């Protein structure tokens, strides 16, 4: 009992040291993952430490941290638990998902809260067709991971968190696919595509990711339009469009940058809307619509170049000058 409480004091001192190291790194407002790592080490020391020497609790500066840390390692070495010092040293380097020789549950503690939340949301996705984009789906997902449904309280934005997580996941998948294609072209193993075709294929790939959830996708779209979700959803949309244009080879630095992205955003959003009410086999209508829209934009670009009054207008208003 006494050792337990002394260990508590040791834990508190370690936490104090830990918070000094943690401040330089970026932390989320609610949970500091590095502190969690230290806290876990402190917990383990509290459980297993049999030594009577408490560490120097007065040191709070960054330099003294290393000395205190080494004394802590001495005490743990002296306390017959050699495995404790390894995690203690490892947590100093930062949050990680190391699975030590401890049991699997203690390896779990090294996972940050964000990673756990991501896992819960990924598990929740398979319940979306049944429950929709809602807290019930997240609760069902948490239960498959063995956590109680009360852990859904971690998601302050509820369904919005789930939808945004899914969008992020789709975007990163698309970026991987485009990067892979780009590599193929660089290696000469594939032909570079026409811009129009490239855009068409990219958008089709991206929209096909919605097919498993197409029944409930209108609900997801409405969630994304809620005022507190609009900044995040706009951010994801803009990064998506930017990525597609980048891999399409756009390196423009003038007004074209904006017009291209605006055009593609319009195409993407309208195609998405067509898709949610499309009932043709394999969404063929949607792809036809997409083809037509891209063709429209291409035509508009070529006619704009051909029409002379546009050039003189641009000269008059100074849009042609290099600034």
């Amino acid at each position, binding site marked *: 009992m006494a050792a337990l409480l002394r260990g508590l004091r040791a834990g508190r001192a370690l936490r104090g040291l830990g918070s000094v190291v943690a401040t330089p790194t970026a932390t989320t407002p609610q949970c500091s993952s590095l502190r969690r790592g230290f806290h876990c080490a402190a917990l383990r020391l509290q459980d297993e430490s049999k030594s009577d020497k408490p560490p120097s609790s007065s040191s709070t500066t960054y330099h003294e941290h290393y000395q205190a840390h080494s004394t802590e390692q001495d005490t743990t070495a002296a306390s017959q638990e050699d495995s404790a010092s390894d995690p203690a040293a490892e947590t100093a380097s930062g949050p990680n998902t190391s699975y030590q020789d401890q049991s699997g549950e203690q390896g779990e503690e090294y996972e940050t809260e964000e990673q756990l939340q991501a896992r819960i949301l990924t598990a929740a996705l398979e319940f979306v067709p049944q429950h929709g984009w809602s807290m*019930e789906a997240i609760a069902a997902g948490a239960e498959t991971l063995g956590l109680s449904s009360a852990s859904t309280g971690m998601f302050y934005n509820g369904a919005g968190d789930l939808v945004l997580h899914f969008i992020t996941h789709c975007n990163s998948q698309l970026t991987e696919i485009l990067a892979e294609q780009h590599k193929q072209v660089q290696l000469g193993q594939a032909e570079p595509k026409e811009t129009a075709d490239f855009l068409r294929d990219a958008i089709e790939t991206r929209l096909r990711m919605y097919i498993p959830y197409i029944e409930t996708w209108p609900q997801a779209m409405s969630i994304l339009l809620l005022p507190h979700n609009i900044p995040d959803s706009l951010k994801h949309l803009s990064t998506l469009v930017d990525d597609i244009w980048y891999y399409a080879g756009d390196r423009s630095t003038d007004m074209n940058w904006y017009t291209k992205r605006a055009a593609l955003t319009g195409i993407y959003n309208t195609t998405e809307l067509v898709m949610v009410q499309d009932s043709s086999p394999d969404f063929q209508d949607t792809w036809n619509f997409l083809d037509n829209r891209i063709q429209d934009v291409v035509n508009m670009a070529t006619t704009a170049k051909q029409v002379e009054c546009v050039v003189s207008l641009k000269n008059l208003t100074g849009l042609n000058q290099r600034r």
Partner: protein
Amino acid sequence: MAASMRLLVKRVIRLSHRNFNATAAGVSGRSGCCWGTASCRCFSDDRSTHFGFETVPEAEKAKRVYKVFENVAQKYDIMNDAMSLGIHRLWKDSLLHVMNPQPGAQLLDVAGGTGDIAFRFLEYVRSQQERQRRRSARSMQTPSWKDISNNYSTEEEERPQESKAVVCDINKEMLKVGKQKGDSMGISAGLSWVVGDAEELPFDDDQFDIYTIAFGIRNVTHIDQALQEALRVLKPGGRFLCLEFSKVTNPVLARLYDAYSFQMIPVLGEVIAGDWKSYQYLVESIRKFPDQEAFKHMIEDAGFYCVQYYSFTGGVVAIHSGFKL
């Protein structure tokens, strides 16, 4: 004065013994002791803690708290309404909103006394289940034959777990009042009343989804022990919620609040419940409780993650929430 002299003498005598138990008790006494004031520093084993603004031995605090609540049990709810002008209902409703329990959740309400939180929990979960049932019925307006036959086959296995609420309190009088209230409201299904000490809960590990303690934790002698017990009985992923009086940050409001607490509340206590001292203890114990940030650190120390607090009514009460991950 004489009491504090006696404590000093005891401390001097015990210092000379210097056994490990003494230092351990001193540390635990410090954790239960008032934060900041030095009326009982560690090193000593007099194991004293605060009872309002008084300093009492730890063993005595539990007994005195028991007596306080035994006296006020009958008039507890009326006094709550009178003292907080009914706002305590809004605070408890906010606790439920923060909790947002899913159907099938198991609640443990410690220091639940007259059962306010448990009743609200059951109502919330039942209305959620109603909503879900209505939603699924709406989507099943024209079921195909396949759907109907599926329903027949899944009805046995799919029985979702009913939510249960367990109200645990150390004080039998409070539980009696709560049971009467429950019976008169007609809520008895899924509710159980257990006598138990927050520092040593009579439950197995990993039992409950949600652990709440509303306006009870400041009466516990060893708060960290209560937090450890909470961690123990919660399932992995379970949530700890604490609704408690806290520090008012706004100085103007703080002055008004202090004046109201110390002038009005004991008077109300005397007039309505006939008990000045219990309500004097109540307002003093509020002042002794750590503020939002300090309590948040205590919860994190106990091993909870993603600890957050929400202040209400300018800091008069705060809801702390933590997860067992």
